[in-house]
């Protein structure tokens, strides 16, 4: 029973000349949320589609709960569920019809299927929308019916492919809450995302993927410390105090402080704790602070730190040659 939820070794998928997935090794322990972080076109979705038995790998191995995704595809299918990037429900059908259809396909009787659908609709706040066609749902509702359909049979492993892309902040928080509850109930989740804060919020471990390769792996904490801290943005009330503030920040944070073109603004790389101390020191020194904020590094900053180039950009010639050699 101790087989990892997901285990891949040298996983490869090529589309024509494009190596969409180029030797990916992953190990995902059961009962956790694992994040695949990367820009568009990094190969996240291709990895998920191979693990969900939708695509055949061109090389390497992939096992889900110890079962091979190619040779034992049916055994894998009975334990996984997929919420794709685009709604994996039938938009012409109503929410209730979609869930009943799925419950029937999973072997529930008609009465059970109807009961199950009603229970799911209620749990996802869609009872009122039950008899409306899914194409008339808002983006957030669509996501919810989609995830609802995915957990209909309480899968052991749930694939969520960019579950919050295109959602408003409130719907996004709802999806996050749902994911937390699903994991707390024992389901393993493989989450792909373009947002570092989403992976940080939900995932126990993160693999950063770029051009089909894992370029970094670890807990969010490890990852963030390896790429450096977030950024502190300070706005002072009085521009005259900026040199004094700059000295204090440089001393406490131990990093280079940048003067912004705005005469009252300063920014510096910083961890949360030193940043708090810096704020205290500024106050002690009677420097009036209008605004003090600590931002997480963005995906762009992560990629800059890991690869010396922005997210999604082609590797430089030197880097590409290095990879070949």
């Amino acid at each position, binding site marked *: 029973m101790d087989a990892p939820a997901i285990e891949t070794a040298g996983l490869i998928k090529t589309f024509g000349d494009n190596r969409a997935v180029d030797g990916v090794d992953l190990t995902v322990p059961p009962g956790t949320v694992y994040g695949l972080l990367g820009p568009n076109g990094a190969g996240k979705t291709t990895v998920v*589609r191979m693990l*969900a*038995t*939708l695509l*055949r790998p061109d090389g390497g191995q992939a096992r889900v709960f110890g079962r091979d995704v190619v040779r034992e595809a*049916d055994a894998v*299918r*009975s334990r*996984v*569920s*997929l919420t*794709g*990037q*685009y*709604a*994996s*429900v*039938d*938009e*012409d*059908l109503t929410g209730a*019809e979609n869930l009943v*259809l*799925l419950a*029937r*396909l*999973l*072997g*529930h*009787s008609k009465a*059970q299927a109807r009961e*199950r659908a009603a*229970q*799911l609709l*209620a*749990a*996802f*706040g869609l009872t*009122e*929308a039950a008899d409306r*066609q899914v194409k008339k749902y*808002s983006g*957030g*509702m669509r996501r*919810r019916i989609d995830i609802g*359909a*995915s*957990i209909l*049979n*309480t899968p052991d492993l749930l694939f969520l492919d960019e579950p919050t892309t295109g959602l408003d902040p*409130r719907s996004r928080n*709802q999806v996050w*809450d*749902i994911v937390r*509850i*699903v994991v*707390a*109930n*024992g*389901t393993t989740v493989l989450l792909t995302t373009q947002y570092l804060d989403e992976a940080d919020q939900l995932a126990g471990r993160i693999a950063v993927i770029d051009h089909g390769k894992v370029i970094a792996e670890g807990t969010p904490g490890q990852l963030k410390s390896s790429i450096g801290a977030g950024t502190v943005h300070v706005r002072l009330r009085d521009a005259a105090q900026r040199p004094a503030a700059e000295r204090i920040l440089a001393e406490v944070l131990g990093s280079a402080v940048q003067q912004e073109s705005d005469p009252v603004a300063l920014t510096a790389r910083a961890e949360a704790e030193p940043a708090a101390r810096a704020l205290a020191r500024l106050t002690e020194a009677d420097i009036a602070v209008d605004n003090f904020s600590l931002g997480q590094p963005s995906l762009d900053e992560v990629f800059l730190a890991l690869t010396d180039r922005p997210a999604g950009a082609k590797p430089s010639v030197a880097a590409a040659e290095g990879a070949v050699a």
Partner: protein
Amino acid sequence: MSTTTEPAEAVTAYAPSSETLGAVLARADRPKRPSALSASLTFGWRAVLKIKHVPEQLFDVTAFPIIMTLMFTYLFGGALAGSTGEYLQFFLPGIMVTSVVMITMYTGVGLNTDIEKGVFDRFRTLPVWRPAALVGMIFGDVLRYILAATTIMVIGLALGFRPAGGVLGVIGGVALLVVFSFAFSWIWTMFGLFLRSEKSVMGVSMLVLFPLTFLSNVFVEPSTMPGWLQAFVEVNPVTHLVSAIRSIMAGTPDMPEIMWTLIASAALVAVFGTLTMRLYNRK
């Protein structure tokens, strides 16, 4: 946050609750997987629901057959048989076959547009009998074939078609047509998966269907045709299907022709069903 175009959401701001969701998730009852037939019928139900929500799609199985029947009856009737009433006795089973066989191409067009949507990703990750989604889709199409055949039969009867085989003969003829069309649809599922766009599916369908339906015994007796054409008409499965259905509706079932049609149907499913599933699994 005050104005909104989504009243349902605004009224009940949804907050996921770990109790209700937990209750859903805690139900670990995993029933046995459904049988191949049960899964296919469930997918057939999906097709019926789609017809219910988009009834306009029935236009092509009602209006098109009506036009075909009226057009050819009055176009050829006088010239070929002396009168439209006379021609209809010969022509009606044939135009029924032509219309329904032509309608089968929408199976491929429908699949081509359907499969690009995310919902097929979900279907293909379900632990059910693999062909069920496609078989169910064709089950739904079979309903359309029956509707088209019924429409033509009603028009025919109104115009003076009098089948000697009576009600049973008509039902038997339609049944054989439906069996053949079900089998024939697998050609289009293959093209639907194989070709890149809806338009190319349409194009290929027309290329296959026009010769197949016109170069047959539907419109005229093959004895009037040049020898090389007769040779083609002889091996055309539509010819055998039409002969079989004519004989059933006339009350004098031609067993060899019926057997020929059934064997051809089985062969179509075996060949194109297999090719379709191979493409479906690779998609």
